[in-house]
């Protein structure tokens, strides 16, 4: 592809096909009778989407429909809990938890006969008036998709589908209409802040690295080392729409005067890595990466680097040290990467989700983006909803949406009638938000004010069965494991914090320990070298702030209300319910249960290891855990 004109012609040829799948575009015409979108993201892949695709192809061939029905293997739709997911257009009919056995019925009735198989569709879309489109469900109707706009709609392994949605038009516009400084100004005006965690204004970052264009080698890096446990936003973008990242990186390269990009991606994401490789190869083939892009004289290319499982490499200087082939230890700043970054050259590093918003900002303008969100946090944010919530999956909402809307409306609330206890954001660097703050509009500054942080967007919901001391210990164990060991506060301090937490969960803590824990947390925050260490105490500080009573109950009463901390539990048998069937005694691994047949049994709590095997085996609910 040598010119913008060629891109335009290609898009005009393709946009009907892709537009056919957009609910807001009702006029688009496809050469196919129907499109079937099959999710091929990690969630659905794990629940058997590959076998489904084979079965579908086979059935379509058998019924002679191959030429009429287009099957598109897309990235993630967001509702991972209902996978494997299949969407049929026109009408955006949403089939959930599809099994191989269901395929013949869907093909015969729906794809051939035009009649929706209503017992197989997502039941929330079934109304007395018929099956309603996906966009009207609770999960989708409050969402607004910018970074995820193509995820679940296009085939990520086909560059033409991306071009059909207007892909690479932003790069074309940038190279032909904008000066590099105008690009930076647009990004600044949009108000977008880094989606990776700390929320630094992206435009400022670019401006700092923009000096001496052409005079010095510079690098554009993409942080795709999504390490927060429970967060999978970036993975979904890479799996569902890899080209948007490539396009945005090229735009960034033009803005700061760089011709080389690196994507540092987790090796644990094999599907994402594979799709990125395909995307880079296709972009090169089409002249959208490489020399003289669109005949503008601008050169840009991208290489992949695989991370190897070190959480600290999400920190910018550590990531660069890792790309250089070293132990991924952070460096002191200043000098900031914009001055001295990768291979000691000026470098910018942005997160996947940040890049995914850039092409739309260029095409729709800074004002469009800044019209969404709150005063200091503009645009939309993707959250990975997980934990004790009904609609586990990916959601994208305007900044300023309340946690209540996300948890109760989009997320569908807590399953099994349990009570909400806290929402954890920001992963191991963030904190737990209690019910009293459910109505706070979510943005960078509000989350920090209530003791958590945005982080990359993981949002784990916890209910009354989760012990907050145990959760704090879980995160500290994570940081102890992942601390790179370079600075003392993080290497030794987090270990000491973990030990105190361990002591408390085992019932050996004192009130003094709680104070010591808090004091240590503040010291580490003040003195650690990098972001990992400075934020490591947050899970403890936020749980101390909102759930101090749980810590105190562990220490003073030796009680774990959520019944999680095993050492504090007592197992007893209710004599009135026990019929003496001996099932528990036979299954106890340490012979702690005694009694004769048909007589109530008893548990020797000195021998008991609290494994819970007896509770699982008792069919009469006679064993209690307190």
């Amino acid at each position, binding site marked *: 592809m040598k010119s913008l004109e060629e891109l335009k012609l290609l898009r005009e040829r393709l946009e009907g096909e892709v537009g056919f799948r957009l609910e807001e575009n009702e006029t688009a015409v496809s050469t196919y009778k129907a499109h079937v979108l099959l999710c091929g993201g990690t969630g659905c892949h794990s629940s058997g989407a590959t076998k489904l695709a084979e079965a579908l192809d086979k059935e379509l061939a058998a019924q002679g429909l191959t030429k009429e029905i287009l099957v598109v293997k897309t990235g993630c739709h967001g509702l991972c809990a209902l996978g494997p997911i299949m969407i049929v257009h026109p009408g955006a009919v949403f089939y959930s938890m599809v099994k191989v056995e269901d395929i013949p019925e869907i093909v015969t009735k729906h794809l051939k006969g035009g009649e929706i198989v209503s017992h197989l569709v997502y039941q929330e879309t079934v109304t007395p008036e018929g099956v309603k489109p996906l966009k009207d469900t609770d999960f989708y109707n409050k969402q607004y998709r910018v970074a995820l706009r193509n995820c679940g709609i296009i085939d990520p392994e086909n560059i033409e589908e991306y071009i059909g949605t207007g892909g690479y038009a932003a790069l074309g516009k940038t190279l032909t209409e904008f000066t590099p400084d105008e690009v930076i100004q647009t990004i600044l005006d949009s108000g977008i802040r880094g989606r990776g965690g700390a929320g630094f204004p992206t435009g400022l970052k670019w401006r700092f690295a923009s000096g001496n264009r052409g005079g010095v080698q510079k690098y554009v890096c993409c942080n795709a080392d999504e390490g927060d446990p429970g967060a999978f936003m970036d993975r979904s973008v890479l799996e569902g729409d890899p080209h948007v990242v490539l396009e945005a990186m090229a735009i960034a390269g033009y803005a700061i005067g760089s011709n080389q990009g690196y994507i540092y991606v987790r090796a644990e994401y094999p599907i994402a890595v594979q799709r990125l490789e395909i995307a880079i190869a296709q972009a090169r083939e089409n002249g959208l990466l490489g020399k003289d892009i669109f005949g503008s004289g601008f050169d840009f290319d991208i290489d992949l680097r695989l991370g190897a499982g070190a959480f600290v490499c999400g920190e910018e200087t550590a990531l660069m040290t890792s790309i250089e082939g070293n132990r991924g230890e952070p460096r002191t700043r200043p000098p900031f990467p914009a001055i001295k970054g990768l291979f000691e050259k000026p470098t910018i590093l942005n997160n996947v989700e940040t890049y995914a918003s850039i092409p739309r900002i260029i095409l729709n303008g800074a004002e469009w983006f800044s019209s969404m969100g709150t005063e200091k946090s503009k645009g939309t944010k993707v959250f990975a909803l*997980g934990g004790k919530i009904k609609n586990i999956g990916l959601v994208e909402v305007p900044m300023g949406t309340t946690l209540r809307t996300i948890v109760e409306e989009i997320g569908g609330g807590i399953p099994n009638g349990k009570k909400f206890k806290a929402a954890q954001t920001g*992963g191991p660097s963030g904190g737990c938000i209690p019910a009293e703050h459910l109505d706070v509009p979510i943005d960078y500054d509000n989350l920090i004010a209530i003791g958590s942080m945005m982080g990359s967007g993981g949002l784990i919901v916890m209910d009354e069965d989760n012990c907050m001391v145990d959760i704090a210990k879980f995160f500290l164990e994570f940081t102890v494991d992942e601390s790179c060991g370079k600075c003392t506060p993080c290497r030794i301090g987090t270990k000491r914090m973990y030990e105190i937490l361990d002591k408390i969960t085992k019932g050996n803590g004192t009130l003094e320990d709680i104070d010591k824990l808090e004091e240590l947390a503040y010291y580490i925050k003040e003195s650690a070298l990098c972001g990992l260490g400075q934020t490591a105490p947050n899970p403890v500080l936020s749980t101390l702030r909102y759930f101090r009573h749980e810590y105190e109950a562990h220490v003073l009463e030796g009680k774990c209300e959520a019944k999680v901390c095993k050492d504090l539990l007592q197992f007893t048998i209710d004599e009135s319910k026990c019929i003496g069937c001996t099932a528990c005694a036979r299954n106890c691994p340490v012979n702690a249960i005694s009694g004769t047949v048909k007589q109530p049994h008893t548990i020797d709590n000195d021998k008991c290891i609290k494994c819970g095997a007896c509770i699982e085996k008792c069919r009469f609910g006679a064993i209690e855990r307190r």
Partner: protein
Amino acid sequence: MDTKKTIPFSGTKEQEEQLKAAIDERKAEKGALMPILQKAQEIYGYLPIEVQTLISDYMEIPMEKIYGVATFYSQFNLSPKGKYRVSVCLGTACYVKGSGDIYEKLQTLLGIKGGECTPDGKFSLDACRCVGACGLAPVVMVNDDVHGKLTVDDVERIIAQYQ
């Protein structure tokens, strides 16, 4: 390390040639060590001291640096993995849904601790951080198969599939 249950190194000449060819291909690149170690692990399945020495000699990089990098990243294994690599996700979403108990059950069942391999080389067990299949939490992976929405009771059935 010595106390871990493991099996001895048995690299072949072909594997060595393969590794050397991979090194020759990338040697000139900036920051090539990580991709080369990843390739070496792909070839041998793990990075024992013998393989690290080979890379060190062939690339003329001090052993201390190779060992430093190999031990820094959790993806690099210094001891061999089993034919079936069992990994339990201990990411937050899985943890709050009880993957800790599943991990414990697997340790008892297989008779090994996390990071170890059964003496017959069949199973190795690890805890891993978020595989991104949070919709299926709690999740256990056996090689590339994902088993989701598990309870402690499912563990025996899953392991039996591979025995």
